[in-house]
């Protein structure tokens, strides 16, 4: 059984003509992290608030552990859903000590003092704050406050953990470290979780199931690798990382492959998923997406490649392990990432090439 199910959920805000969430359906399996990824204003935080019970949906229904908690125009109040939530601001109460913060939820469940002490201590151990129980939030660092918020959310053993951009206020190093810790902790406790973020790197690390949102609808969902390697739309391809996105018109359609006529460049052969194929026919506008790292750069025309284009090196940008070359072929400027040992100079001629399965045909958006 899914820990959480959202079925055709619609949410409008009073005065705005367009709904903020427009028919959203997804589910979270036992012990898995679902990541809601999207730019600001896409409705991901609103979705989380609908799950939390801070908002009620206008249409559709929400089920936690198979029990309906919200339907059109109604919802159980948040305190009756047994959820844990970590807020972007942490919302650690400044007038309570670390211990009191974590103990709050247990006190509401009228446990014995001894039980509370034991469970709070265990939760603090889990987030490596065993020693700081007596401190006030103003006396600990932002990263530590973050852990208090986490301990406070998991100590009540919620059905589902909700995380609203919890790492966005931390500095880069701490953020990367916390990502891994969060994942480890979640595995350890076997907790199902929803994680909202606009950071694609964070999403990749954490997601068992990745949901990319845009303008209140799900643009694509699936395993993180799947979504990264086989984006459905140009938006998803761009949002998940640097890509070469070429616009053109379909000239051939076969099972799992297609050819695109790109103006100013020529024909491009690429992979075509069944799902994308179902909404396209020959002559339609579409794009092909190729990640820079999957393109090859060579001085002479490679023999075997399905796609090869001659060009001139316009710019060379040293990135450390990799070097980025901007290669101009006709109207197209490629971005190619190659190992830094591979050297071309600005002005050199070079060939950009890739196999047909490297590119993905995506819907324009």
């Amino acid at each position, binding site marked *: 059984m899914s820990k959480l199910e959202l079925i055709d959920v619609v949410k409008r805000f009073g005065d705005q003509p367009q709904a903020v969430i427009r028919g959203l359906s997804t589910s979270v399996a036992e012990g898995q992290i679902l990541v809601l990824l999207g730019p600001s204003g896409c409705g991901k935080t609103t979705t989380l608030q609908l799950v*939390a019970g801070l908002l009620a949906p206008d249409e559709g229904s929400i089920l936690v552990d198979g029990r309906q908690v919200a339907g059109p125009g109604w919802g159980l109040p948040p305190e009756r859903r047994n959820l844990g939530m970590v807020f972007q*601001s942490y919302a650690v109460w400044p007038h309570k000590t670390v211990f009191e913060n974590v103990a709050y939820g247990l006190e509401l469940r009228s446990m014995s003092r001894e039980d509370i002490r034991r469970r709070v201590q265990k939760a603090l151990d889990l987030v490596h704050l065993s020693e700081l129980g007596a401190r006030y939030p103003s006396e600990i660092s932002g990263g530590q406050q973050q852990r208090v918020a986490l301990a406070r959310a998991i100590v009540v053993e919620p059905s589902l953990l909700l995380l609203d*951009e919890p790492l966005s206020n931390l500095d880069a190093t701490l953020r990367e470290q916390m990502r891994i810790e969060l994942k480890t902790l979640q595995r350890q406790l076997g907790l199902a979780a929803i994680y909202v973020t606009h950071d694609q790197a964070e999403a990749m690390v954490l997601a068992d199931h990745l949901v990319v949102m845009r303008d209140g609808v799900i643009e694509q969902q699936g395993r993180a690798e799947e979504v990264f390697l086989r984006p459905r739309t140009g938006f998803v391809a761009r949002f998940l990382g640097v890509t070469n996105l070429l616009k053109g018109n379909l000239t051939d359609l076969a099972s799992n492959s297609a050819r695109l006529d790109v103006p100013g460049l020529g024909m491009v052969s690429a992979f075509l998923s069944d799902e994308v194929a179902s909404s396209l026919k020959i002559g339609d506008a579409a794009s092909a997406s190729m990640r820079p790292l999957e393109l090859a750069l060579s001085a002479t025309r490679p023999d075997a490649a399905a796609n090869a284009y001659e060009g001139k090196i316009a710019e060379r940008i040293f990135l450390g392990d990799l070097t980025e070359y901007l290669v101009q072929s006709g109207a197209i400027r490629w971005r190619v990432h190659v190992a830094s040992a591979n050297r071309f100079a600005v002005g050199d001629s070079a060939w950009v090439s890739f196999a047909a399965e490297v590119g993905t045909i995506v819907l324009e958006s």
Partner: protein
Amino acid sequence: MTGRPASRVRSQEAVWIAAALILAVLVLLPVYHLVVASFTTKDGLSLANYAQLFRVRRFQEAMLNSLLLGIASSVFGMLIGTLLAWLVSRTNMPYRRIIRTCVLGSFAVPAFVNALSWVLLAGPNAGSLNQLWMTLTGSREGLINIFSLQGLIAVAVATVYPLAFIFMHNAFEAMDNEMEQAARLLGASGVRAFFTIALPLARPALIAGFIMTFLEALALYGAPAAIGVPARVYVVTTQIWSLFEYPPQVGMAAALSLPLALVTVALLWVQRILIGRRGYSTIRGKSSRWQRADLGAWRWVAVGIAGVIVFLTFVLPNAVLVFRSLYRESYGAFSIGNVTLAHYKYVLFDYVDGLPSIRHSLATALAAATLAGVLALSAAFLSRGRSFRFSGVLAFLCMLPLAIPAMVFAVGLVATYSGGWIVLYGTLTILTLAYLTKNLPYAFMSCNAALASVHTDLESAARVLGASGLRTLRTITAPLIRNGLLSGWIVVFANSLRDLSASVLLYTSATTVISTAIMDVYYASQWGAVAALSVILLAINAVAIILGYRILGRNVLSPNT
């Protein structure tokens, strides 16, 4: 920080010393003379004045009444203020904005005008409400008698509750929604989350609210004079005033004043201790949609209660003021023929103190606001960056008057300038000094906040591009702090205009100001003139604030642009 050119430091030090001297004369000298006078009798230095405090019954009664008035006003004021603040900032009560505007509007009405309005409404004979009651029922007696201790407390509560509202409203607005949401998700009901999270988080505002409303009520003069005295209910401020009746007993007045100042200092200190240490500032979440508590059908009950409160404390008193200023003194049913401009004509042209008092008020308020602005700006500039060992001294001197009630300060001014080398008693200068010094803290806070908002990098950027220090000041700093400076100026101007409690000790028949003129016609029972002069005062006040809005674009009361 790198060093500055030596000559500049030296000239800055000279300016610093000059500013410190001026401030010391303004602030410390009257306090010094106040203390000395309290220990002085005609037989030389003694504790006789203080002994009187314990011996004379009416002084003890006055102190007890002041305490009672302070406690009652602060308890009821906080209850009403907190309730309204919560309804306005945290619930879906309808017409929230109108309620909020009315509460804040009460701030523009001087406390003593509010008290006089209530006499015009509920005075036993002249009160409009009572006249209406008698007309409707044929009764020979009015409905309410404002001249009572209860009447005084009610008017004081109406005067101080907007202050409580401001503190609590700001606290509720600043509080992150997510703080309460976190409690809800852990299983707390809305009510429980409010009492265990929201209210404790507002603790600093609760403490500040209780203390500031108490001190405000303690320092009230207009209401106790207009309502308390006819009811034979005396408080400390009205007793101090009566000690200035011929022959003036300045020493005794000083001895009665000092406890008032000491209580104020002590409470401000307690407030610091209580609020201290624990940091309450937290990282704000994203501005998620504000979730207001849904009151359901109760929201109509809520707006009913809130509406009655603002109607009674703001709408009705000001309406009666306007009405009485335009209506001939008469009993019986309303008649359109009784509408008249006679009261305005009287106070502007026939009443001997009318026009002069308006002229005096404007002149002293303008001078006080301008001088306070210049002094506060200099002090703020010199305290900036803390380049000297004693740079905190200027800030301390500027803020000190906050701890001295206006009337107490006026006693100090009388003690300082009515004998000895410089005699200023009976001049407009002494009034200006009182307004200027009492309002220095507000001017200083505006300037300081405005300067603090100008990051030194902004000035450094101009210097690096080749601008001289003076040019930087003129083209970068000055435009950036202009709004803060102007809003400070308006606050001092408006406060000076509305002062009664200092003026009443400092004015003479040659130096009446609007507030004292209003009290004079009040004692003469010229109700129409009271109303007309009050309306004129409110109008000048409103014009200043509206002009401020026009120039500053809504930032009149917040120094940061």
